[in-house]
């Protein structure tokens, strides 16, 4: 199959067995790779008993998938998936870097990991296949230490096996930190120290399988494509377009830590109590002076939205992270009342090391701080931590507790939604007004109260990925912001930042054809292919379980806080209007083929030949 390495590695960690798996053209043409294929694999294998599958138990499946476009299109990414311990549905969570390229050069399009290993292990993948190796010595190690040891071990092993070949480049390493090991629901799957697939909580899934890392070194060529010259031509065109629109190249998204709050009033400030601030101390100029690299790119990318932010002196010395980007400036900055670039870099570097997602963990840290502000959580509850807004050291101490599930950390490690339920139980107090989460998934740092940012009223409430700001529900369905378009990038699997410019956007269809030979039309994509993936994700989300289940009437809603007016800034007084919100939700349901209760209609599912999805959905509704 053009564009594909041709096989997937299936690892049964319980029995320490491995085999190659292949998918036929029909499946690949319909589900492509990454997020789309993840939905298909998970549904086929777990759909019949979805509600019973514990995301952190042995039955869950961890998927590390590339797509046919990965590596060819500037900005290679890997899609991580499985049953999400946050939403209990399926989330396609992507992370940039060289790992997916190494995997494809070793002959694999992806990894399907099942079961649970008895002891900590890591996978070592080369052209000659995969091995399961002992990871006892890595258990408990943070991100930087893990990468250091595995790069060294990997290179030594390669040199031993293939003497006289010359120097070996480093193998690429995907791993979890201590948080993933502790099955923390806000843990990410990490790469290159600072990159993480955070949405979904798959670090906890990988850790639950005792899979510390996957190390890959491939020496083969990229897969055969339909027309390589054409791929190069389209690439050149894309680079040219993206140079004209170079905001991301200049600043990354890191200019927004000030900008989104000050200009758009849509940035989480102190757990979303405000969405506006005018803290000049958080301006991009303050971050910029801490950059040691103006550009840090992942494979093939010249947009290079990442910049390396480093603290070389002073009490926070030794912190290294990528800028941080906007989301992490917001969530482990403004959301915690932290308005200093140095402190934000320090906190993000720490979360990277611990293997915690900046967005998901930042959300729960902010939630805890608000409960402390309100006296609901006491210093005693917090194991002595004085969790005041802006107290960087206090937030650092709490993050460490979350990563190893120590004391209060054990409750917060469940993520904001579940922690709120637990606190309600123990304190007898309803703390849901302070929860800013969508179906278990913390909402990205783009509020909708001011109406000035890109998400619309239905964006989070109707998304099949909950609060994921990179995959929002949007009408019209073929809009640049639409979730159906996110499915395209996440299935490809490529970075959508290189398609931000409207002139670059149509190039994706050309890439598909030049690489796979398949002429995928926008009509086909938005009406059929993407809908299939969306509906499977929606049904899995509605089936939910085992601990939580979502009912659209109750849970296709927004955080209570967003119906309260903004208290400060140029848009003070603005709030989400419930009637308008419900109208938008209704419109979205109708557009996408769901009934007035948010349930995919039989007609729609059958039209897309998803008869078994329809059957199981109806059974669950009885």
């Amino acid at each position, binding site marked *: 199959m053009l564009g594909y390495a041709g096989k997937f590695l299936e690892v049964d960690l319980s029995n320490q067995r491995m085999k190659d798996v292949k998918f036929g053209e029909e499946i690949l043409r319909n589900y492509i790779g990454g997020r789309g294929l993840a939905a298909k694999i998970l549904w086929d294998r777990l759909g019949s008993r979805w509600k019973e599958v514990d995301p952190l138990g042995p039955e869950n499946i961890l998927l590390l998938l590339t797509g046919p476009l990965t*590596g*060819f299109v500037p900005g290679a990414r890997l899609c991580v998936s499985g049953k999400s311990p946050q939403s209990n549905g399926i989330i396609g969570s992507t992370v940039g870097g*060289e790992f997916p*390229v190494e995997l494809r*050069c070793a002959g694999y399009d992806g990894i399907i990991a099942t079961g649970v290993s008895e002891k900590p292990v890591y996978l070592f993948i080369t052209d000659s296949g995969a091995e399961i190796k002992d990871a006892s010595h890595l258990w408990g190690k943070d991100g*930087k230490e893990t*990468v*250091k040891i595995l*790069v060294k071990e990997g290179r030594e092993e390669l040199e031993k096996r293939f003497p*006289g*070949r*010359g*120097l070996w*480049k*480093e193998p690429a390493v995907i791993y979890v930190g201590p948080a993933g090991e502790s099955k923390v629901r806000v843990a990410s799957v990490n790469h*290159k*120290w*600072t990159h993480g697939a955070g949405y979904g909580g798959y670090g906890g899934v990988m850790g639950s399988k005792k899979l510390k890392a996957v190390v890959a070194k*491939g*020496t*083969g*060529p*990229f897969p*055969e494509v339909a027309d*390589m010259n054409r791929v*190069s031509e389209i690439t*050149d065109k894309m*680079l040219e377009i993206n*140079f004209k629109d170079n905001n991301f190249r200049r600043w990354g998204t890191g200019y927004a830590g000030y900008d989104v709050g000050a200009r758009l009033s849509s940035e989480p400030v102190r757990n979303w109590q405000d969405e506006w601030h005018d803290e000049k101390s958080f301006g991009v100029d303050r971050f910029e002076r801490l950059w*040691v*690299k103006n*550009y*840090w*790119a*992942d*494979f*093939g*990318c*010249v947009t*290079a939205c990442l910049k*390396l932010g*480093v603290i*070389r*002196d002073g009490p926070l*010395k*030794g912190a*290294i992270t990528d800028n941080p980007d906007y989301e992490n400036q917001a969530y482990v900055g403004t959301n915690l009342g932290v308005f200093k670039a140095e402190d934000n870099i320090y906190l993000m570097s720490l979360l990277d090391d611990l293997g915690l997602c900046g967005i998901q963990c930042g959300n729960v840290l902010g939630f805890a701080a608000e409960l402390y502000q309100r006296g609901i959580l006491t210093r005693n509850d917090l194991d002595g931590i004085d969790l005041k807004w802006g107290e960087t050291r206090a937030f650092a101490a709490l993050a460490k507790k979350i990563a190893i599930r120590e004391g209060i950390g054990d409750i917060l490690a469940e993520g904001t939604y579940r922690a709120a339920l637990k606190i309600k139980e123990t304190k007898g107090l309803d703390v849901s007004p302070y929860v800013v989460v969508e179906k278990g998934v913390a909402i990205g740092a783009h509020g909708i109260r001011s109406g000035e940012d890109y998400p619309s009223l239905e964006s989070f409430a109707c998304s099949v990925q909950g609060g994921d700001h990179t995959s929002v529900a949007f009408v019209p369905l073929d809009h640049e912001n639409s979730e159906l378009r996110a499915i395209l990038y996440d299935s490809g699997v490529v970075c959508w930042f290189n398609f931000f410019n409207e002139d670059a956007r149509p190039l994706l269809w050309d890439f598909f054809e030049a690489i796979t030979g398949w002429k995928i039309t926008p009509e086909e994509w938005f009406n059929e292919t993407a809908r299939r993936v969306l509906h499977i994700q929606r049904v899995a989300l509605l089936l939910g379980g085992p601990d939580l289940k979502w009912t659209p009437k109750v849970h296709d809603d927004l955080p209570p806080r967003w119906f309260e007016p903004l208290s400060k800034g140029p848009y003070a007084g603005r709030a989400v209007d419930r009637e308008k919100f419900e109208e938008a939700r209704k419109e979205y349901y109708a557009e996408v083929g769901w009934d007035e209760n948010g349930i995919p209609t039989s007609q729609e599912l059958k039209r897309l030949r998803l008869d078994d999805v329809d059957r199981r959905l109806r059974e669950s509704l009885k």
Partner: protein
Amino acid sequence: MSETKPVWIARDYAKCSGCRRCEIVCSLSHEGRIWPEASRVRVFMLVPGVEVPHLCAQCHDYPCVEACPAGALSINKETEAVVVDQEKCTACSLCIDACPGKVPYMHPGANYAVICDLCGGKPKCVEACTQGKWNALQILEKDETHTYKLYARTPEEVTRELAVQLYGEKGKEVM
């Protein structure tokens, strides 16, 4: 005879973004497909954020050519690049041992060493680096007073220095 003067590829590691477009275009040009491990320039990332493009520096005394027992290595008179005769090369790896920077390596799909041939004087990797506006790799005219061997260094050596340059004291711990 061509009038073009020999060139060399100057490298400024701190400017390398790690985009690896040099590997993409080099392998496309030499192998007809994207093949990072067969690229004549390879970007090492032994420490995240510390990317080191590794390629031949054309030492004035060519220790690799001297060391080749099979007569497979020669010097192109026009470009002064090392040329590998793929038929003659026995993949004995003595050129690697002789190189101060351990630059040559074996082709991942065949039995011969690969070394940068400067693309006949117009290196594709530099074009890609220029296109990316990184300028980590640049083309300069060769200068007789310049010691090119200084650039024939192992990625480990370069990484150790650069990690400290970028990360300060922390740079000592991470490798």
